[in-house]
Structures are given as C-alpha cells and as structure tokens.
C-alpha cells in the first residue's frame, strides 16, 4: 500500500466516523417533545382554582401537582437569596405576616366563643346573650376572611413581581452566556429552569409559605387553647398526633411511588405513540401494523396495572385519614361524656364541643405539614437551579473595549490551537491569512474542524493559544457585539424565528425600512418565492421555520445577512436536500454577497472552491495544504486525492 493510499484510507474512515458537530446538536424534535412535557408539567403544577382558595394540595390526587425534582443542596443560602428579592416589598410582607398571625389567632377564638355560648346562654336559654355571642362569632369570621383575602392578594402580587424579576434575571443571563453553555445543556433543561423552576418558586412563595405559617400558628394556638379549655381532653388529642402523623407519612410515601411508576409508563406510551405516528408511513410500508399494535398493547397493559396500583394506594389515604378523624372525634366525645357525668375533671358540654373543634384545627395542619415542607423543599430546589443559572459567568465579563466602525477585512490566524473539551484539541497550530476582500475556501472531510474555525472568528469560542487578528488587531480587543455585528454568518441549517417572513429578514437590521428589506430579499433571490406565499412578507413562519424548505430558509437567512451589511462573511454551503434550482439561486446570491467582502466559505462545490482566492485544507484539526486550486492540484497531495476520487466516475464516464 502506498503512502497515498494509506492517507486515503485514513481519510475515508474519518469521513464516516460520526463526530459530534456542535452546530448540529440542536435536535428540534427533542425540543418540541420537551416543550410538551414542560407544558404537561406546568398544567399539573398549576391549579389556578387553588391559588386563592386556601389550602394548597388539598386535592384528592397526591399525584397531581407533584414535581419530581431533587432536594436543595444549600437551602439556607437560597432562601436568603429569595429573601433579597423580596426585600423591596417589606411593607407588603409585614402586612401579610401580621394578617396571617391575626387571622389564625382569631380563628382559634371561635370554638372558644362557641363553647361559651353553649354553656352560658344556650343551655341557660338566654336568647339575647346567645345572640350577642353569635354576632361576635359572625363578626370575627367576617373580619378573618376579609383579612385573609387581603393577605393572599398582597402575597400574590408580591410573588408575581418577584418571580417576574427572577425570570427576567435568568433570561438576561441566559442571553449573555457563552455558546458552549448551549452545547452542553439540553434546550429542554434550560427551558424548564426558566418556566417550571420559576413557577415552583412562585408557588412556594404565594401559597406554601403562607400556608405553612398559618398552619404553624394554628397548630400552636389551638394546642394552647385546648389546654386552657380542658387539659384532660387536650392530652387525649395529643396522644393521637404521632399515630396520625405516622399513618399519613407512610401512606403518602407509598402513594408517591405508585404515581411515579404510573408517570413512567405514561411517558413510555407517549413515546410509542409519537414514534409510531411520526413513523406511520414506515409502519404501513413495512406492514408492521400488527407488531406495533402488540407492542403498544403490551405497554398499555403495564400502564393499566401501574395506574391501578397508584389509584389503590391513593385510595387508602382518604379512608384512613377519614377514619382517624372520626375516631378522634368519637374518642373526644366519649371521654368528654364520661368526664362530664363522672365529674372526675370539671367539664361542660361547651368544652366538649370546643375541644372537638380544636382537635380538627390541630390535626389538619399536622396532616398537611409533611406535604407543605415537601413543596417548600421543591420550591427551594427550583430556586437553587435558577440561581445556579444566574450565577454562571457571562461571556462579556472580559469583553474588549474597542468599538468598530468598519473592518477593512484583513484576517490573520497565527498558530491557533483550540479545544472544546480540555485537552482534546480540535484545532492545532492553525495559521493563515485572508487578504482584504478575498475569498477563502475551507475544505476538508466532515469532522476535520472546518466549522470550528469559523466559530472562533466571531468569538463564539475563545482559543487556547495563538492569536486571531482582524485588521492587525487581536480580536479580543474588540467589543464582542461589534465584532459579531460586522461578521455575517449564513449557516447551512438556518434557524428562523416564529413570526412573519418580514420579521425574520428585518432581524438583520431592526432599523431598516421596508424598502431596504425588500431590496435585501431581492438580492438574496428570496423575493420571488416570498411574493408567491399567500401573504407575501407577512406570511407566518412556524416554530423553527418548519413550514419552509431548507433552501428557502437559507435564502431568507441570506437576505437577513445582506440587510445587516457585514464587513466579513462566513458561509456554510448546503450539501444536500436542496433541489438544483434553489441551490443555484443560493449560489448566485452568495456570490453577490461575497463581492468585495472578505469571506470564509465552508465549501462543498467545486465551483465555489475553484473561484476562491485561497483554499485551505483542514484535516484532523490541522491545516495541511493551502493555496489556489491549480496550485493545490499541482501539489498532488491531499486535495488532489480528494477531488480525483470524488469525481472519478464522471470523468470515467465522459472519457468513454
């Protein structure tokens, strides 16, 4: 095997090895799926009707409103930080706390008044006295609910404003994070932080903390009142507390397990449905209907079983709690009755009635407490995740200071070495120059590092060593935003924003007039097809631009770049999936765009490469050849091999 052949072999392997291209890891279908999950989760987490209605999580299904998040690592620091956000609303918070205190305390007065009314007036048939007490009770109840209403309202406002501020801080930071953050984090995860996690904070602020506070106060107050009314019956009630707590927690734990399992199977089912519907054509083509139905049926059975289990577990909770409540009620009345008759301890009918009421007030918070703490913990964990995002260093922290009016366009790479992951060098010792207004074609097998080179020029990533200069100045000296504005990028797979076509083009220069936008579209060869759309420039672009073909998306993005009028250009030629005529249009408009601008093209077409003023050949992260087309062919090296093999069949065919 000659040396050349070996080189070829190596290159072929290179081309086939699936390397991770950072440009391609935005898996759109995944994002959409995640969004769906996010939405489902949001819906599960949010039950509007409960936000102002009193207790949270009172509902039947412990599975609802359950967020399967982790535990916070540093709870106190996180709480302190949330508190800082709340600091602005000190007056509001004081109002809320005072309100919660007073209403909880007032509520515990009612059974006592009631008992008093029974003993002193009703049993004595004193109508006017009873009415007076009745009016007191009515008054207290009225004031309590009014104050409670105000406090909830205030708290909702405070939490909404706080959460909005947190969300804004998180999003602001997100926009300023370096690109590698987005390489290493799933879009779904990031979205979840800014939606779900923030919602969790909102939930724990608005209802959980309030509920917790009022539960604790009610708990203590009713305990004290019980002892004041009758110590003996109070002791009886207290005896039941551990029992109650034990049962509730035990059952809640089992129930949660059941629902987690159900959720898992539901996810699996959704997966199958999604996979088989989007692949329905295949199913039909391969006549796989029976098999896929059997598979579905199988998973469906599992879901049925898990769902049944979960419901049975949940089914235990209510009856048990119900039973315990009734049982305590009964014990109080029975023991109270015995005490009343035997007179071992002095007690009145009113006292018995009061203790039953207090018992209820006392037990309910205890049953709720575990769940409330759990929700609070989730809220804190959510806050922690959001704050972690906010705390990441943004990419402008060491930004350059030089402003840029205009680039001439001289670019120089000097001994540049770069790695995405530490110690795994993707580019090694790259040096080359681009003359003002000239075109540089970057050629090489997939995964050789072509895309990486252009990512370095606009500082999406910073190099490990060496220097990159534009107009004889290190690019680190320039302001990043200015640098990027002056470097236009047209990618192979273009991202469009949902909105209108017009909005997508005008993105290049938000101050452009309508005429300028149309002019840019015309230059990009996009005007004609845009005008054929039902609404022309106002035609709607769906999320991710899925309603446009890849070629059309690229034409729009070229128009966008033309409008932004950059001084230096980076182009990524399309390889496939574009029909010949569209491709021709793209070629033409790219050529127009490149005129007079220093351009870097990741090239696949021979014509583009041949027309370039300079070709650099990248292989395995190194620049192995550079020169013009004919120079490189004369060299009979890697470039020569690449093209003689790629086109050998055509040449053969034409030769005869």
């Amino acid at each position, binding site marked *: 095997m000659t040396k050349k052949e070996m080189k070829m072999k190596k290159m072929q392997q290179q081309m086939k090895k699936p390397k991770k291209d950072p440009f391609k890891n935005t898996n759109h279908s995944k994002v959409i799926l995640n969004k769906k999950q996010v939405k489902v989760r949001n819906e599960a987490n949010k039950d509007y009707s409960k936000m102002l209605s009193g207790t949270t999580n009172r509902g039947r299904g412990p599975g609802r409103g359950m967020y399967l998040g982790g535990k916070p690592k540093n709870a106190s620091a996180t709480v302190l930080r949330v508190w800082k956000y709340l600091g602005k609303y000190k007056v509001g918070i004081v109002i809320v706390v005072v309100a919660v205190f007073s209403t909880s305390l007032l509520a515990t007065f009612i059974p006592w008044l009631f008992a008093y009314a029974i003993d002193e007036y009703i049993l004595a048939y004193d109508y006017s006295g009873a009415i007076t007490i009745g009016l007191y009770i009515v008054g207290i109840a009225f004031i309590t609910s009014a104050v409670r209403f105000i406090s909830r309202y205030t708290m909702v406002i405070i939490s909404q404003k706080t959460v909005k501020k947190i969300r804004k801080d998180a999003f602001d930071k997100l926009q300023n994070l370096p690109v590698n953050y987005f390489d290493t984090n799933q879009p779904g995860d990031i979205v979840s932080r800014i939606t779900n996690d923030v919602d969790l904070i909102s939930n724990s602020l608005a209802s959980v903390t309030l509920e917790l506070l009022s539960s604790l106060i009610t708990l203590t107050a009713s305990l004290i009142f019980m002892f004041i009314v009758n110590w003996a019956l109070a002791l009886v009630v207290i005896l039941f507390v551990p029992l109650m707590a034990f049962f509730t927690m035990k059952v809640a734990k089992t129930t949660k397990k059941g629902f987690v399992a159900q959720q898992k199977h539901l996810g699996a089912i959704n997966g199958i449905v999604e996979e088989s519907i989007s692949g329905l054509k295949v*199913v039909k083509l391969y006549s796989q209907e029976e098999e896929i*139905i059997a598979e579905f049926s199988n998973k469906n059975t599992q879901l049925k079983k898990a769902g049944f289990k979960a419901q049975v577990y949940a089914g235990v909770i209510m009856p048990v709690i119900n039973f315990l409540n009734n049982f305590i009620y009964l014990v109080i009345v029975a023991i109270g009755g015995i005490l009343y008759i035997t007179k071992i301890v002095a007690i009145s009918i009113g006292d018995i009635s009061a203790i039953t009421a207090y018992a209820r007030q006392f037990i309910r918070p205890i049953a709720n407490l575990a769940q409330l703490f759990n929700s609070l913990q989730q809220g804190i964990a959510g806050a922690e995740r959001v704050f972690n995002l906010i705390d990441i260093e943004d990419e402008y922290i060491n930004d350059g200071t030089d402003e840029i009016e205009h680039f001439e366009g001289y670019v120089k790479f000097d001994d540049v070495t770069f790695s995405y992951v530490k110690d795994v060098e993707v580019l090694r010792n790259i040096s080359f120059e681009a003359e003002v207004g000239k075109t540089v074609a970057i050629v090489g097998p997939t995964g050789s590092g072509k895309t990486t080179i252009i990512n370095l020029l606009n500082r999406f990533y910073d190099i490990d060593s060496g220097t990159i200069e534009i107009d004889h100045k290190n690019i680190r000296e320039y302001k990043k935003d200015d640098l990027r504005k002056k470097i236009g990028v047209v990618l192979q797979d273009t991202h469009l*924003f949902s909105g209108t076509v017009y909005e997508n083009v005008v993105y290049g220069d938000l101050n452009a007039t309508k005429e300028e936008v149309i002019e840019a579209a015309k230059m990009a060869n996009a005007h004609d097809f845009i005008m054929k759309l039902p609404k022309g420039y106002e035609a709607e672009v769906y999320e991710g631009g899925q309603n446009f073909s890849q070629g059309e998306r690229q034409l729009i993005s070229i128009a966008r770049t033309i409008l932004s009028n950059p001084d230096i250009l980076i182009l990524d030629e399309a390889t496939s*999936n574009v029909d010949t005529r569209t491709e021709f249009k793209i070629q033409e408009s790219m050529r127009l765009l490149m005129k007079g601008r220093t351009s870097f093209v990741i090239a696949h077409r021979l014509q583009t490469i041949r027309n370039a003023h300079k070709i650099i050949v990248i292989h395995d992260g190194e620049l192995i050849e550079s020169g013009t087309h004919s120079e490189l062919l004369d060299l009979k090296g890697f470039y020569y091999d690449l093209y003689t093999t790629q*086109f050998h069949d055509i040449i053969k065919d034409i030769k005869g």
Partner: protein
Amino acid sequence: MNRINQFFKWMKGNKKYYLFAALLLISLQYFRTLTPLFIQHTIDSVILGKESNLPIFIKNMMEADTVTKQLFLVAVIYSLFALMRVTIMFIRRMINAFYTERIAYNMRNTLYKKLQDLSFSYHSHAETGDLIQRCTTDVETYRVFIGEQLIEILRLVFLISFSIMQMSRMSNEMTMISLLITPIIFTASFVYFLKVKKIFKRVEEAEAKMTTTLQESITGIRVVKAFAKEKFEIEKFDKHSKKYLKEDFNLLKIMAVYWGGTDFIIFIQYCLTLTIGIYYTVNGALDPGQFIAFLSYVGMIVWPMRQLGRIVGDFGKTTVALDRLDEIMLKESEHDGDSTNTPKITGFVEFENVGFQFDDDDVPLLKDISFKVNRGESLAIVGKTGSGKSTLINLMIRLLDNQKGSIKFDGVDIKDINKKHLRRNVGIIMQEPFLYSRTLYENIRIMNKDAHEEKVFKAASIASLHNDIKGFEGGYETMVGERGVTLSGGQKQRVAIARMLLDDKPVVIFDDSLSAVDTETDIQIRTALKDHWNNTTMFIITHRITTAMEADKIIVLDKGEIVEMGNHESLLRDDGIYAQLWDIQTNVEYDFMKLDKGVE
C-alpha cells in the same frame, strides 16, 4: 340522547362495575349524613334525655339502662359504623380504579389500532402532535370525567339530598332556612366556570408565547449572538413575560372575586342558620344537639353546591374531548373493502394515464402519467420539489389512490390487489428513513426477523455500513435514538438500504435515498446493489443527475406531468430540462476534467 350515548359508549363491558361503585358511593353519602346525628343523639338523648333523631335501627342498638352504658354503646357502634364506612370507601375506590384503568386501556388500544388503520391521506393532512394529544390527553380527560367528575357529581347530589332529608326529619322550618341561599351558590359557581374558560385560554396562550420565545432564543442562540441581538431578545421575552403575568394576574383577580364572593354567600348562609338556630334553640323549638347537627349539615350542603356548579360548568371540556375522539373513530379504515386478491408480483409495472389530486385541492398533483418498466429494469424520476415525484410513489403502494387511469403490476390493476400484499412486495427506501429506538442490529432486521447474523452483516456490507457499525463502541448492539447514538443522515439511509436487502422484493423504490451519502459511497453502493438485485425492478427518485443517468429509463416530471422521457443520451440530445440540469450540475466537472488533463 346522542351526547349521553357518546358519554357511555366507551364504558362497554364496565357498566356493571360502574353501577356497583355508584351504589356503594350513594350508600356512603347516606352514612355520612348520619354522623351529625350520632352527636345529636349523644347530646340530646343520652345527656339531656330528649329525643334522638337517629334512625330507629341504630337507636335500638344503643338502648341501655345507664347513661354510662349508653355512652359506651354509642362509642362502640359509632366505631363500627366508621370502620364500615372506611371499608366501603376503600372497596369503592378499588372498583373505581379497576374500571377506570380498564376503560382508559381499552380506549387507548382501540384508538391506536384505528390510527394504524387510517389511510395515509388522512395522516398526511393530520398533525402528529394533535393525534398524539388525542391518544393521551383526550383519553385522560375522559378517564377523569368517568372516574372522578361523574362520580363527584353523584356524590355531591346525593350528599346534598341526604343532608336535606336528615334535616327535614328534625325541623322543616330550619331546613328551609338552611337552604335559603344555596341555589345562588350553585348558579354563581356554574355561570362563573362557564365564563372563565376564555380567560384560562388567554393565560395559556400567553404562557405558550412566552415559552416559545424562550425556546427559540435557545435553539437560535447562534443566530442571536451572530447578529448581536441579545438585547432585542431580552426585550422580546420581557414583553411576553409581562403579557403573561398580566393575563395571569387578571385571572387571579377574577378568581379572587369568585372565591371571595362565594365564600361570602356561604358565610351569610352560615350566619342565617346560626342566628336563627340559636333563636329556635333558646325558644325550645330545637334541641341543642339538633342545632349542632344543623350546623354540620349546612357544611354538607353549601360547599358541595359550590363544587357542583364548578363541575357542571366544566362539562364542556369532556364534550370537546369526546368529539375529538369520535372524529377519529368514525373515520373509514383504509382496509375496509380491500381486495383479498394476492397475485404474484414479478416486477413488471405499468402506468396508464394516471392522474391524482387531493379532494380539497384545485390543482391535480399528477396528470396523465404513462410509462412501462420491465422486470429488472431501472427507472429514474427527476424533477424539482413539488413536481409530483413522491405522489407517484405513494400511488404505487396505495398510500394514496389514483382517481384517473390505472396502475398495473404484472397486468393486474393495483386496486384489485390486497394492500398489505402489495406493500409487502414493494420496498421503499426513504430519504429520511425512520429508525426505531432499538439496536442497530434489530433496526436492520426489522423486515426479516428470521435473518441470521451473516445475512445481516452481508446486507450491511453491501450498504457500506458494516465498517461504520464496527466503529461504534457497541457495534451492532448500539442503541439508536435518544438513548443511544445519533446517526448521520447518510448512515440512516444506509440502514434503510441494508433493511431492504434482507428482504427480496420484486420492486424497490429509492426515494432520494442516497442524497445524504457522499458521491463516492453512492457509487460504491449502487454498484454493489446492481449485482445483488439484477432481477429487481428499481425506481430511483433523485436530484443527482449522476445517479439518474445510469438508469435504463429516465422520466422528468414537472408540475405533475411527464415532460421528458428517455435515457441519458436521448435526453441530453433533446436539450430540455434534463439537459439543463445536467449542465448546471456538471459543467464544473467538465472544467475539472480539462484541468485534470492539463495536469497530466
């Protein structure tokens, strides 16, 4: 009546369980309304020596001579009674869980089967996300309705009725007073929930917009940064975030008014019962125990009333979900009335004046298509996007049915051939093949599960895939998809080719299926395929002229019509679209050849 049918038809085979559960539930509500009477009994009868309102059969169980004994009996009977309630409650929940899960299971299975049977033209017009939602969310909506909401309505109605019954056994006047304002509670709640839906929707839309903005700024972060538009994105998000907050806050305000308002009405009802109750008690018209019982019963009426209004107001959701499900179920299956004829297919294909157009389109997608392909021949179809290439293929395997002309396999019109049989005989390799989240090995073997290892390896080799797979850490056992490796477009296409190689079909269609493979590998594969498939009729759809040129026959489609037909040489001579495409794609290669010669 239709509505009722619609509600209950999914319950097939489960109605008796449902009825049983409902009866248990109703009995539970009755028992629940007995609880206040136990207290009334204790206070009025045992302690104060007045009349008890408990039903006689229970009262009789607690007869005793001393007060202590009576109290003891009350305790015992009440405990037993509570235990019984708990047991019934538990059994009812079990039954409920049993049939709701069964119903949901049946629904999902039925729907899923139906979806598989629906025609391709239905699916090509339906949104995947929407269908998935119907299979999951809409089923869930119905499950919740049957398993929870309907039950809840029953529960509330009977709880209220029994409470009223128990109250009227004590005092008619007092009962009237305790019910005075309750209709208002129901109406207010019902009307409110009927109206608030729009606002819910607005909030959801605002939230969706915010999430979309967020999501797009992440997926498009490189565009954002390349244009240095971070500030613009921040402002955009801020705008949507504000809008969402405003809508959400609006909703909360309205909610607050509702909860506050109904709370207030309920409160007035309590006040009424309380003050007038005290008056009656002091007057002696009511015993103290009865008075306490009345207060309990008010609670058993007012809160359920509010809840009831809410659920009834929320009915619409279920109706919509059921309508959506019906829409699928009532669609005709593509196998209804299909031919049972399964003639031998060898690969002789004829198109005679074939035409097709979608019902809701004005322009035909294909017009007057005629050609013949003999067994073992290859036909290339060239044309730009939208010229009708894919439609032509879809007609051949009857994913769509041509309205005009006829398509014949070995002289038999395909409408007289069983669909599944037809599809088993025609293989399609798609441009974006679908891979299952299984191992590569399983993915290749999907068409022929009996193929042994050697055959799989050979197929993979012919498809130039074997070396790639060997390069993966897990080899053939590497998982594909979310849990495993992501394959490149070219690799996916080669998996699809390997699949087809395992299953000898007389007709194979390449739907632009080598587009993502580089030219060199393309040639390599095609050469290998030619040897392997010399008796197979091949249809090749392509953009690449160099791929088309080697076919025995080439047709050029434009706007649904055959504009040129022939072989490479004759089409070049004709100097039409084909020649034009050839020029665009190859002029550089000619130049290259010249250069190449120069170098030589």
